């Protein structure tokens, strides 16, 4: 048998049909929906007089728009409230499980899927959200789709996709202290740029990747879209199986044994070919932070902003425009720059491990007076766990406020907006102009770097004050 990659094994097992001269018709095992990209798909479905073909394969939760304080009250913003209510009504009408605001199962869609065991190795998983790539951490093919495709999944449990090319990114060696999965992500994107992965599906491999926890793997796969890739994935191993076993929707008993036997076959065969391969040494990775307006504009925290002297034409125009927006000068040192806000949360870094890292860092320290911090758990389950472990007390003593679950300031669709001109060290995934509010200036970083900035009020290498 011809050696196959992990990606090929799963993809080929889901192709219902190869359209002549066209895309593959791909069967979808798991579909997640939220309030922003689903309403028009439901409308389209109804206009055609169709029903949801397999409602049991779709799970819904409102996350993008929801407030992160006083969630027991009615949502004040009328448009947000309409969207959140439309999701609930559409789910009721079509028999889709819906984890509403304030309920036990509520949270950011990419956080609750894995928590509930809905995300499993070998699956095809889609959602009308680009960070669906998160679920690839389990050895699944998971990617973001548009609303037309959401409608396709409703109507047929399939979508039409050309088969992407395959990329392998290997990181070998041991990560230095203070270096996290987020730093690997920002490092890789800085190397290959925000378009380096376009047209590809990435498999992350190598000893540094294998050493990551499931939370870390989710952070890394989550960010794979930021280098332009359709998604990223990691071969399932004992770490994966241990995480999945016993969760609500995980297979049980004999079903578990059968599933496990299959999951153990999900790895790239020796000799299987990739279209593109990158290899990095874990020892070269340092805590990272971004200085520009796309996630590829990142640098080691102890370094300087590039001068841009080697750029020309539209590259130079874009670079200058970006630094002007950020209020930075080419060649500036990153360390020591004053910041105003710290946001911890999102589908990138809103899991329990992220809050544990922050708690252990800030314990016994105090938040800088001029900094406003928003700690937003990724789900109700994360929030409960924070409280169960007493992390909320540590946060409180250090001067940090814990909010309620949602996407929050990652994309600022709710009231959690960073004011124009203010600097925000954020554990989220995008530093685009206006992403965290009109005029907001975002510096992407790991939870540790964010915590260090919250304590000192400026860009700080967390290793210096650990």
């Amino acid at each position, binding site marked *: 048998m011809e050696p196959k990659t992990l990606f090929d094994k799963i993809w080929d097992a889901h192709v*219902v*049909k190869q*359209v*002549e*001269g*066209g*895309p593959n*018709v791909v*069967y979808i095992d798991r579909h997640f929906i939220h309030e*922003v*990209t689903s*309403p028009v798909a439901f*409308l*389209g479905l109804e*206009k*055609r007089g*169709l029903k949801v*073909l397999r409602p049991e394969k779709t799970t819904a939760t409102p996350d*993008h728009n929801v407030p992160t304080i006083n969630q027991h009250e009615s949502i004040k913003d009328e*448009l947000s409230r309409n969207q959140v209510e*439309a999701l609930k009504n559409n789910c009721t009408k079509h028999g889709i499980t819906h984890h509403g605001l304030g309920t036990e199962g509520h949270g950011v869609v990419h956080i609750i899927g894995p928590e509930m065991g809905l995300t499993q190795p070998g699956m095809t998983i889609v959602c*009308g*959200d*680009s960070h*669906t790539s998160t679920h690839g951490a389990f050895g699944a093919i998971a990617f*973001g*789709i*548009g*609303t*037309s*495709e959401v*409608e*396709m999944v409703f*109507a*047929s*449990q*399939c979508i*039409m*996709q050309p088969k992407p090319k395959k990329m392998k990114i290997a990181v070998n060696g041991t990560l230095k202290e203070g270096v996290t999965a987020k730093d690997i992500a920002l490092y890789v994107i800085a190397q290959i740029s*925000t*378009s380096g992965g*376009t*047209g590809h599906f990435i498999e992350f491999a190598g000893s540094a990747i294998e050493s990551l926890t499931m939370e870390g793997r989710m952070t890394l796969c989550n960010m794979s879209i930021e280098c*332009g890739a359709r998604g990223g994935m990691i071969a399932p191993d004992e770490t994966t199986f241990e995480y999945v076993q016993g969760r609500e929707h995980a297979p049980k008993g004999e079903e578990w044994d059968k599933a496990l036997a299959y999951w153990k076959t999900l790895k790239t065969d020796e000799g299987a070919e990739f279209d593109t391969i990158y290899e990095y040494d874990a020892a070269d990775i340092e805590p990272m932070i971004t200085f520009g307006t*796309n996630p*590829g504009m990142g640098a080691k925290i102890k370094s300087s902003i590039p001068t841009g002297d080697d750029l020309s034409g*539209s590259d130079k*125009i*874009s670079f200058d*425009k970006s630094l002007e927006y950020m209020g930075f000068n080419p060649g500036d040192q990153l360390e020591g720059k004053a910041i105003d806000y710290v946001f911890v949360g999102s589908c990138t870094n809103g899991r329990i491990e992220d809050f544990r890292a922050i708690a252990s860092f800030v314990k016994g320290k105090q938040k800088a007076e001029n900094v406003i911090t928003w700690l937003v758990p990724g789900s109700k389950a994360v929030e409960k766990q924070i409280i169960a472990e007493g992390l909320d007390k540590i946060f409180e003593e250090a001067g940090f406020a814990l909010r309620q679950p949602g996407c929050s300031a990652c*994309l*600022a*669709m709710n009231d959690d907006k960073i004011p124009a001109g203010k600097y925000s060290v954020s554990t989220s995934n*995008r530093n*685009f*102009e*206006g*992403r965290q509010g*009109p*005029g907001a200036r975002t510096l992407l970083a790991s939870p540790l770097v964010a915590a260090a900035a919250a304590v000192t009020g400026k860009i700080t290498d967390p290793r210096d004050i650990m």
Partner: protein
Amino acid sequence: MPIDKFKTLTSPGIPLPIENVDTDQIIPARFLKAVERKGFGDNLFRDWRYDSNNELIEDFALNNPKYSGEILIAGKNFGSGSSREHAAWAIYDHGLKVVVSSFFADIFKGNALNNGLLPVQVSEDFLTQLFETIEKDPKSSFEVNLKEQTFENKATGESVSFEINPYKKECLLNGYDDIDYLVNMKDEIEQFEKNR
């Protein structure tokens, strides 16, 4: 919904020589709150078209009266970022039928094609020439022929061919969409489910 049939068009181009134009620029998240596909065109490039006091920024290309037409010509890696189809809707609903760039983000490209908006990928050199042509004469026009898969710069007479998936090309030319196709495959899909 069935999409509009794509017909050969000749039009001036609107230049946006900026790289990595992301979906948050095309349509900021705070304008994604509608539950119908309505009004997105008004908020296309909202934060580049309007300043913080909601005043029109007059020299931004989409506001500048010297530029017109149904073709947006943009720097490389257009449409990166989120999967929001609202980005394709906003561009299309604003009256644009074609986006030309030297590189497109995958999800945006798929969303555009699903809505009758044609992404035309050209070489970086050719893209630079297009910007130069428009700078010389904003009224100079370009011809997009999907059937022949050609894009012509009328001012220079140079014509280049562009790639498109043959299935997607048929869909655009005839106004078909994928949902009709998939719904007609119901028996095959059910058979697939049984055989797993």
